């Protein structure tokens, strides 16, 4: 328990302080500091290669950071044992970009899997709970189908049902609108809002879809080349006059700014970022 909790203040469900990560020799996240408050929907935005999906993997504890701290539900991910991180993950839900449903199981079995693995409930109770979650995501009656028999939007809904089957305190969503038409995408946004309102959980959504972000976000974090460019509400974001934020909001391509030496290095194939071969 942290000092904040000790004096009666409730910690934020997610707190990231000065997070630095590497992929091989390349630095991906360059000192990211952010938090997610209780019951809020935090949208993490940024262009391709900005580091938003990387940030999500670190928040989920799938990778170990080079430096900095990540606290999820009050626990420092860097200091947790395997057993502790497994216990923590039971309080987290994740909806992956492609759904990540297990293709050898029916929709119902996919949704019941966390219950089957982590509880002693009998099968009929698990089936009832799965049906309730399927109703929440408007997929009632689909529990007997295989994932291959569902459309893209339905797969994402089923993934949401599985993500919330254990009633998590925090839900992470990776690109929920990716690959969907605007109508289905908008319906998924409504679902995210409904889940938050019904279950009171904090939700972190990683996306590059502006309309979706503006519709659901309580606050927005904008990442750019591994650094935080902005954290605030949607209204505050719209008022920003930073050129890179304006480019993102107006869907303008970012001009690639490199100095002369870097340009020459690239021309001769000696890219310092990827290690020069002598």
């Amino acid at each position, binding site marked *: 328990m942290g000092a904040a909790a000790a004096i009666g203040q409730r910690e934020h469900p997610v707190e990231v302080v000065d997070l630095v990560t590497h992929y091989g020799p390349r630095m991906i996240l360059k000192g990211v500091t952010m938090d997610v408050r209780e019951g809020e929907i935090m949208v993490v935005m940024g262009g391709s290669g900005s580091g938003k999906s990387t940030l999500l993997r670190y928040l*989920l*504890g*799938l990778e170990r950071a080079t430096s900095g701290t990540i606290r999820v539900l009050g626990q420092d991910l860097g200091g947790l044992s395997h*057993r502790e991180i*497994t*216990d923590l*993950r*039971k309080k*987290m839900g*994740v909806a*992956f*970009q*492609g759904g*990540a*449903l*297990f*293709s050898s199981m029916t929709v119902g079995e996919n949704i019941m*899997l*966390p219950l089957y*693995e*982590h509880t002693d409930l009998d099968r009929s109770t698990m089936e009832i709970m799965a049906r309730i979650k399927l109703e929440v995501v408007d997929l009632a009656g689909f529990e007997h189908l295989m994932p291959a028999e569902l459309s893209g939007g339905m797969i994402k809904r089923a993934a949401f049902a599985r993500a919330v089957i254990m009633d998590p305190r925090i839900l*992470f969503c990776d690109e929920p609108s990716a690959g969907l038409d605007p109508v289905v995408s908008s319906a998924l946004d409504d679902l995210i809002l409904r889940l938050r309102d019904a279950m009171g959980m904090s939700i972190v959504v990683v996306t590059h879809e502006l309309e979706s972000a503006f519709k659901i976000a309580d606050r927005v974090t904008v990442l750019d080349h591994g650094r935080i460019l902005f954290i605030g509400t949607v209204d505050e974001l719209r008022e920003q006059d930073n050129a890179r934020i304006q480019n993102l909001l107006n869907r303008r391509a970012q001009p690639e700014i490199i100095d002369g030496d870097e340009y020459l290095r*690239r*021309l*001769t*194939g*000696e*890219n310092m970022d*990827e*290690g*020069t*071969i*002598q």
Partner: protein
Amino acid sequence: MPAVDRRPPFHRFADKVGRATIAGIEEVGSGGVLVTQSLFWLLFGPQRRQPVRMAAVFVQMMEIGIYAIPIIGVLAATIGVMLAIQGIHALKIFGAESQVVFGIALSITREFAPLITGILVAGRSGSALAARIGTMKINQEIDALSVMGIEPVRYLVAPALFAALVMVPTLTVFSDLVALYAAGLYVGFDLGLSMAAYVDQVIDVLSVDDVMHGLGKSAIFAVLIAIIGVVNGASVTGGAEGVGKVTTRAVVQSIAAIVVTDMVFAFVVTR
């Protein structure tokens, strides 16, 4: 833009050899870790409220063992008859064809039955395991297991390893029986030896050690097939094409490992 490599050719060659060696050592290390972790979950999973599910083990047993019975039966019978034909042909030169049962019984139980069973299981189940794990990795299903608090090694690897350890030796016993029976039919047809007399000779020739020699090898083959399949599947990159590559790689590596291990085992145990 890709970096231009200006080093002399020998340096580039040495660099490639060094990287490939390190990658190979890493893969062997990963395999060792997977075996250790699988044993851990098999033994201590129940205490940590994460048992290896018997339902998953039975599914794997069906895939690795039961569904392989028809093809293994056909190949074992073919190998038995082939050994009888070649044995009789070779021994006829010395007028000793009546001794063919010695060669058949020993070579089937000690060598051919475990080898052909291992190669077939590698082709059927090692490839299937690599493809399954590879596809799951690409579809983020492995990550999904992790974030649900379900240990992927416990959920995916341990059942496959345990099932292989049970089923490959069992299939080897089946291969022994089918190959010996088929060889007996041919010996009866060619030399006029009755099946009862043939069985008597086989029982006289074989010792428990001979059978255990074959079964011991098949247990090692089982571990190799399962772990090589998983290590290759887990190393997949690049979508569906990557899955195809690791699947092929898993089969080639498994068969190579089986043949080399067979030779080493025979050298160590027989001499």
